[in-house]
């Protein structure tokens, strides 16, 4: 790891761009997908169409999406915006399904009770549905975070600097230590994001700690993935 000691500044710079390139799509994806999921959950026909579109979008390979976006949105081929837009699209695709499932998990009886207690529709959505959908939303966000952090590295192939640049440079200069630093950095960053989301979930949704699988260590992303498979079979 002498290479790391001599190149700490460079790694930190790349780490910071990696953080930006991941945080923007994760946050934007969440903010865009939650209302879509909420709407889809109330309109079964819209839900089918939206989830099919999300599934199709998620099928598009990342490198191909990075490179086809310039022709559609008019950016340059090496513009970091391509990576941000593409990863936001993937984040919306994953998160819209999770959000729809999350709002679907709220008991209709509770919603009726909220209406009876005098909540206006908007108040009910924000003060009752959103918090109750929280645990499932958190589980979905964790999947989005881990996959986004890992996908950013593919952007290095299109000249967008991030920890993935250590792979391309390390390969060119025959430096396995450099590649290893990149791999460890990306996995560590994914774990940190995952931990932060779990922590935020516990602080914002204190009641969900006792509930089932949603807030358990790094185990639940794969469980959500299994649910994703199950949901995606029709």
């Amino acid at each position, binding site marked *: 790891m002498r290479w790391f000691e001599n190149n700490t500044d460079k790694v930190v710079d790349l780490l910071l761009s990696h953080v930006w390139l991941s945080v923007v799509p994760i946050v934007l994806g969440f903010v865009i997908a939650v209302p879509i999921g909420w709407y889809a959950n109330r309109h079964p026909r819209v839900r089918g169409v939206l989830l099919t579109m999300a*599934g*199709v979008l998620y*099928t*598009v*390979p*990342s*490198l*191909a*999406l990075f*490179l*086809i976006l*310039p*022709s559609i949105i008019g950016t340059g*081929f090496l513009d970091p915006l391509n990576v941000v837009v593409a990863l936001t699209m993937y984040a919306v695709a994953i998160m819209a399904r999770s959000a729809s499932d999350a709002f679907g998990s709220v008991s209709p009886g509770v919603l009726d009770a909220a209406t009876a207690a005098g909540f206006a529709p908007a108040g009910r959505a924000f003060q009752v549905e959103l918090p109750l959908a929280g645990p499932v939303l958190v589980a979905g966000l964790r999947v989005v975070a*881990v*996959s986004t*952090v*890992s996908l950013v*590295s*593919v952007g*290095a*192939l*299109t*000249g967008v600097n991030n*920890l*993935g640049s*250590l*792979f*391309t440079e*390390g*390969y060119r200069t*025959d430096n*396995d230590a450099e*590649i*290893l630093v*990149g*791999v460890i950095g*990306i*996995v560590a960053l*994914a*774990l940190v994001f995952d931990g932060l989301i779990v922590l935020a979930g516990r602080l914002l949704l204190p009641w969900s700690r006792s509930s089932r699988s949603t807030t358990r260590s*790094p*185990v639940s*992303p*794969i*469980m959500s*993935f*299994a649910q994703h*498979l*199950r949901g*995606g*079979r*029709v």
Partner: protein
Amino acid sequence: MSVVNDTVDWFADSSHWSGDDGVPHRLVQHLGYTSLTVLIAAAIAIPIGLWIGHTGRLRGLAVVSSGALRALPTLGVLTYASLFTGIGIKAAIFTLVLLAIPPLLAGAYAGLESVDRQTIDAARAVGMTEWQILTKVEVPLALPLIIGGVRSATLQVVATATVAAYVPGPGGLGRYLIDGLALSDYPRVVAGSVVVIVLALALDGMFVLLQRLALRNRPAAVRTTA
């Protein structure tokens, strides 16, 4: 939108449809890598997934290790492995197999876990051996989810095989993207991306049909126990 016109021209050029760098040859290569990889990964992951799902043993280990595998950046594993295997497709195949394992494993054990316990108990009660329970009850009922795992693995491999062209050696459709970028030949890059996307969507559509077939043909056991 000159890039779009140039891309259309690229497709219209007959020299791009023949020879070693032609679309048909690259497409066949890409499908070849994909099927070879998914077959190897399935031979490893599906038996293990079925064993875990059937016995319930080592489940935690499988969940954690496949979760960790999913967090690994593909390009990093590919370049790292390439430094040790040298030029050639060995590193690419190794990386692709590694990436195809988690979804296959998850599909197999999540599929078996989704089978109603009462159905399995009933099968045991009528005297079926464990092997019969696995092959005649659990696998047929879990088939749509197992195919779902193969579907995710295949799409993952199609995408990653494109990235794998970064390392000299592997052919496949990724060559158009990587070589086109290196030469600033953007029509080639966009045309290659279009072919990759069409291939992925076509394969996904095929798996949707397979899953529907599996769902329609599965035994009615679920209904009789409910």
